[in-house]
């Protein structure tokens, strides 16, 4: 039998060019490039795909990354679950009339609708999301904010997540306790039955699974804010990012 590798291989030996190696190295190069420029490229990819993804009867395009799709994040092991019947929203703290509202109480209050882009601090953006719910300022009005109050401390029923807003921010016209988004009820993974929507700020401010709004007289930084994210998370003017503002 053979004494050389080539003959021992019999069928091919060392003939041919090492394309396999080039493919692997090429992929690694592209991957590294993508990590560096992906932040800038994905906007272009998204706009290039938008004509397809917006007129797609199959729904398959919802699987395409960056083409205006929400990503689901949570900070707890289990996605929390609460039915509309079980749902309660508490407004308390420095207020004259603490409130406990069921889902139907919320929907029978004056409703506001907003259409805004949703921008995540990790880079993805969903254009023209429709939101419906109760303005935070109407809730605060109903409860009656006491003198000396300056901030809101907002709690999620996932048991871990919190957020903060100043009273001035909370009284803007683009701050909702939302029970509809994307033309339907807020789904469980999107933070249903009721979540916060903070129009002008990065997505982490729009707390999911809204349970309690506590009116306080000091800043209590939220879950990500104690982990280094900006408290005032204006889109395009915080967290070292320059995205186009959403409100």
């Amino acid at each position, binding site marked *: 039998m053979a004494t050389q590798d080539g003959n*021992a291989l019999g069928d091919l030996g060392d*003939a041919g060019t090492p394309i396999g190696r080039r493919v692997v*190295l090429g992929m690694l190069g592209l991957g590294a490039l993508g990590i560096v420029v*992906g*932040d800038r490229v994905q906007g272009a990819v998204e706009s290039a795909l938008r004509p397809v993804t917006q007129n797609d009867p199959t729904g398959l395009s919802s699987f395409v990354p960056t083409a205006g799709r*929400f990503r689901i994040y949570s900070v707890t092991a*289990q996605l929390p679950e609460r039915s509309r019947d079980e749902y309660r929203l508490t407004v308390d703290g420095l207020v004259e009339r603490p409130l406990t509202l069921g889902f139907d109480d919320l929907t029978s209050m004056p409703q506001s609708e907003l259409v805004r882009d949703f921008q995540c601090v990790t880079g993805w953006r969903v254009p023209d999301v429709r939101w419906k719910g109760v303005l935070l300022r109407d809730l605060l009005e109903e409860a009656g904010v006491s003198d000396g109050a300056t901030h809101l401390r907002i709690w999620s029923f996932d048991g871990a997540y919190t957020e903060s807003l100043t009273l001035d921010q909370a009284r803007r016209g683009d701050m909702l306790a939302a029970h509809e988004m994307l033309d339907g009820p807020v789904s469980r*993974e999107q933070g249903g039955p009721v979540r916060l929507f903070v129009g002008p700020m990065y997505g982490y401010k729009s707390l999911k699974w809204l349970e309690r709004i506590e009116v306080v007289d000091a800043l209590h930084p939220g879950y990500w804010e104690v982990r280094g994210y900006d408290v005032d998370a204006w889109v395009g003017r915080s967290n070292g990012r320059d995205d186009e503002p959403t409100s």
Partner: protein
Amino acid sequence: MRAQPAEAAATPSPGPGLIARFSRAERALHWATAAAVLTCAVTGFVLYVGPLTALVGRRTLVKDVHVVAGLAMPVPLALAYAGRWRDSVRADVRRLARWTAADRRWLVSRGREATGEVGKFNAGQKANSAFVLGMIPIMIVTGSIMRWPDPFALSYRTGATFVHDWTAIATWVVVAGHVLIALSDPGSLRGMLTGWVTRSWAERRHPRWAAGQGPPSTPPVSMKRATAPYDDRRPAHGGTRGRPHRGQELAQGARGHPRRRHRR
């Protein structure tokens, strides 16, 4: 002296018309890698599709499984190179890595031309293996940036997510194609399941390889349709050093080892 002892090891043929295609180490490498990749694919899909995430609920558990399976992807390859069995792996890796002009013709014509030139691996198999070898480090690096983002600038995290998502979609497509083609070619699938293929299949699909696999079949007298496959652990020089109980295993195999169910 043989340069590729495990390759050339004279294992008794298990039956008339059968030739050894993959060693046990290679099959273990293939299926262990496949298990890790499929686990990542399924858990990744659950994490990626919101309603599915909600349906499964236990997002942290799914995420942990995804991360562990991802980090495990290169382990089989490392182990395949770590022992005496490495020769068979190394020889096939070399075959997979090199492309001839005939490979290009075969690929461009989607398997219609240059069929007589195909060696142990066709161009599709070569492309598949190169993709998987490139995919694994990309997914591990980008996945690690996503999982442990603290040291990285925000733009790198975004870029890593971007690369991870698109590479995942490419991997779904490649793996789905790989599985469909394997299912449509039972002879090939059987090679990866049992280690053995029929000579007629090999001559049809991999003629240049089949031509180098000994004389056209004349079965050893005493072996009737044994199922134990090609054994790369067998001493290369025909001696008995190593594992004296090998023969027992082979005999067991011949009498109805569970692997038999893969035979037709």
